[in-house]
């Protein structure tokens, strides 16, 4: 139950609070994956802090038996930054939704990411505002009919990963609620990343946006519509693993394997590729007609210094150079004079 018991289990991360999501909600699967992964990270339970905003997804901390902070709508990245900067040794995760993270919280999200604060963001993307009962969100498709857009929405959506890459994020990944194993692997990779991590988790809201990801997640469709990004491996997909993605100049193309086209002709995934446009190209792939949706780690740049470390080092440096601050001297600094 504490740091003195190093071997933790999934159960250790479950709380006594009733889980209050709709039956069938994709959030359950995500919770289960996180509860399964945390004990495997070799980190004492009390070092975890789970921070969230407001939304169905943001109830997450209540169900994680560690330190948790359910803050206000959209502000989790900023609260988390305060925690992480003040205590870099803590393991800070943010649970957020597409509305919380990209609508009201868009600015805090991109700033936290560009600063490369060592926080892991789990963005539950159900393409809808669940908690407020079904308005369209910044990831809802153009023309979407919802409670607030009965005649269809007029706003083009964000591509969350393209935005994150545009905001200089050092770790960018995508997984899906129903792909438990993949999700767990992705979470572990995020945990291993040093800087800021943004993980989009496609999640089904079966009440207000049921089937938003069905074209990807239906058992039959998965292999045809999803391509898994694996470091060092070619981009292959299809029920018979007979299709691949090839780079032609700057452009991607879907090719049929065989007939002279072999795996070697395909794009070999390199999550550390330093060309910044590479991950961007992958992120935009799903929008291209005829292309599969990539899941996995799009980018993982592990050598970018973290904000909190730079801050801490600066303090160390100045202390080294000037000596630890002396309050008495501080008070007496500047021009002084004695009155007797």
């Amino acid at each position, binding site marked *: *139950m*504490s*740091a*003195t018991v190093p071997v933790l289990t999934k159960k250790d991360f479950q*709380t006594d*609070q009733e889980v209050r999501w709709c039956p069938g909600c994709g959030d359950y699967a995500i919770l289960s994956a996180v509860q399964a992964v945390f004990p495997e990270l070799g980190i*004492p*339970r*009390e*070092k975890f*802090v789970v*921070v969230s905003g*407001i939304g169905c997804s943001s109830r997450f*901390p*209540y169900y994680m038996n*560690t*330190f*948790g*902070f*359910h*803050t*206000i709508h959209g*502000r989790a990245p*900023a*609260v*988390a*930054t*305060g*925690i*992480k*900067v*003040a*205590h870099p*040794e*803590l393991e800070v995760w943010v649970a957020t939704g597409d509305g919380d993270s990209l609508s009201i919280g868009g*600015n*805090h999200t991109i*700033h936290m990411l560009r600063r490369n604060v060592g926080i892991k963001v789990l963005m539950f993307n159900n393409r809808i505002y669940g908690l407020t009962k079904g308005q369209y969100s910044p990831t809802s498709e153009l023309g979407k009919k919802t409670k607030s857009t009965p005649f269809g929405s007029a706003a083009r959506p964000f591509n969350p990963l393209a935005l994150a890459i545009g905001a200089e994020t050092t770790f960018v990944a995508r997984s899906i609620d129903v792909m438990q194993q993949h999700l767990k692997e992705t979470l572990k990779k995020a945990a291993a990343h040093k800087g800021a991590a943004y993980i989009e988790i496609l999640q089904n809201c079966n009440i207000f946006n049921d089937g938003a990801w069905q074209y990807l997640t239906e058992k039959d469709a998965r292999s045809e519509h999803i391509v898994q990004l694996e470091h060092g491996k070619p981009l292959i997909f299809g029920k018979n693993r007979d299709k691949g993605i090839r780079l032609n100049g700057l452009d991607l193309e879907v090719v049929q394997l065989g007939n002279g086209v072999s795996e070697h002709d395909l794009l070999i995934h390199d999550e550390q590729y330093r060309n910044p446009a590479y991950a961007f190209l992958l992120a935009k792939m799903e929008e291209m007609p005829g292309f599969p949706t990539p899941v996995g780690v799009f980018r993982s740049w592990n050598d970018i210094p973290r904000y909190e470390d730079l*801050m801490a080092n*600066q*303090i160390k440096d*100045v*202390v080294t*150079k*000037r*000596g*630890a*601050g002396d*309050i*008495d001297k*501080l*008070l*007496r600094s*500047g*021009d*002084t*004079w*004695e*009155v*007797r």
Partner: protein
Amino acid sequence: MATITDAVESKPKRQVIERAVVRFCGDSGDGMQISGSQFTNTVALYGNDLATFPDYPAEIRAPAGTLPGVSGFQVQFSSSDVYTPGDAVDVLVAMNPAALKMNIKDLKKNGILIVNSDSFADNDLRKAHQATNPLEDHSLDAYRVFPVQLERLTQAALEELGLDAKTMNRCKNFFALGMCYWLYNRPMDHTYRWLDDKFKSKPLLAEANKRAMKAGYSYCEATEAFQVSYEIPPAKLAPGLYRNLSGNQALAMGFVVAARQAGLQLFLGSYPITPASDILHELSGYKNFGVLTFQAEDEIAAITSAIGAAYSGALAMTTTSGPGMALKTEAMGLAVAVELPIVVCDIQRGGPSTGLPTKTEQADLLQAMYGRNSEAPIPILAASTPGDCFWVALEASRIALKYMVPVIVLSDGYLANGAEPWRIPQLSEIPQIPVHFVTDPQGFLPYKRDPQTLARPWAIPGTPGLEHRIGGLEKQDVTGNVNYEPLNHEKMVRLRAAKVEAIGQDVPDVVPSGDPEGDLLIVGWGSTYGSITAAVKTQRAAGRRIGHVHLRYLNPLPRNLGQVMERYAKVLVPEMNMGQLSMILRAKYLVDAEGYNKIQGQPFKQAELEAKIEEVLSYGAVGTGKNGR
């Protein structure tokens, strides 16, 4: 009280007077703030009591020589107590027609006016929208005008140094400073030292400025321009080591010291805004005290990052001014709900909206009291002088940490930039701030309260066995679990209110200065302290029975305030707003407090207050009975 102006008829070579008010004004590029501070530090080192008022142009830079570009610095210094920078000016230094136009109304009749006559060409006059040349049109006949060719004389003095014209011209403020030193018989060695230090790597510039200053001094000596010079003996200040301190410097230092006394790391989340930015700048320099300064993307991130830092165990704070305060309100509600200690400093400025960013005002009190959704009470402290900001920072931190509450500190543009001689305390005079992080899982419940303070325990991440969840939803008493039950909600609303009320046990009873009972009680708060104190002193000397209470604690109010008010026939509340404290007093005590309200982006003048006091005491002083009730 002898002043220069009074003393003008007798003309001894050197005359001892009690106090003087000097103002330097010119274009923002003319270095008036530097001349002013140098003069201030020199008289301070000599032992005078003093108060300063820097008057910056609006945020935006204006073209040189125009009216919006005028910058000023005023200092009052004396051999006795000084409470304000002074209503009217004895010596005015004006570097151009724009500065002259904006400032001349504050010069006393017969006062000394030193003008840079080199900048009164047609072009200069046009930029100041002056149709005629005031040096020639007799509009200045009421003053003792000394036109000085500041530019040409400075150039002449620097001739040998081989500097370009622009650089030489930049030294003219030191020529003017030299003249003032002569006028008040002050040594220049402090400024010499300062120049050496400032231009360590550019000794030529140090030399140039020194020469200009010396030239100004000698100019007076040689030309006998003034015929008389003045001497103001040292004041009888409490013994100790002194320094000049502005309100923003004092706040910054106060929080560094508070963190040290509490054994915590100081975390500042802030977003720059006039006139609060200097606190961020100051604290960013204190890295060797382990201070973490986080310049956030906006005010919301500034306060929420502070809440995060507080959650993880830092002494966390945020600094801003009115518009930024408005943006922080939702997050303040969160701090109230989760009961975490943060300090929110609002350095008030003129409004509404962007308003008058460089001007002062006290109009955020009701925003501080009520500017949040639902019932979200927050304790509020207000500083009354620049030096007091230091003590208020300490006290705000102490309350936040003891009661586990957000605390609001109100300062304003006038305190922030104004400076006063400040007696440096001994470390032993500064209270320790005890802080307790719970570590024992036994019986730990996140909302179990200390019976005396009603504070909940501070259980920081990283502590084994204390894992728990908090948030902005209503929570169950004691357990802190989410809870929507009607009676629990009412209980929690009342508990949060009771916790703020409980702070009253630490709030000292007010003891009015002046008369302990009488015809009029003046209740003030914040930066009006100096003007009220000066006005009350003079009016009491004239025989009126007046008390003065200056509130540091605005929420909760001192417990005896109601009784104290009953001891006076009338209550007057001067504020730089439309009557915010008076509204609170009227509602709480049903006292017929009268507001005296000035909303001009400028502090009260002593004379204005005195006139108001006389007016209030003249009507129905007897008839209406206690507080008009």
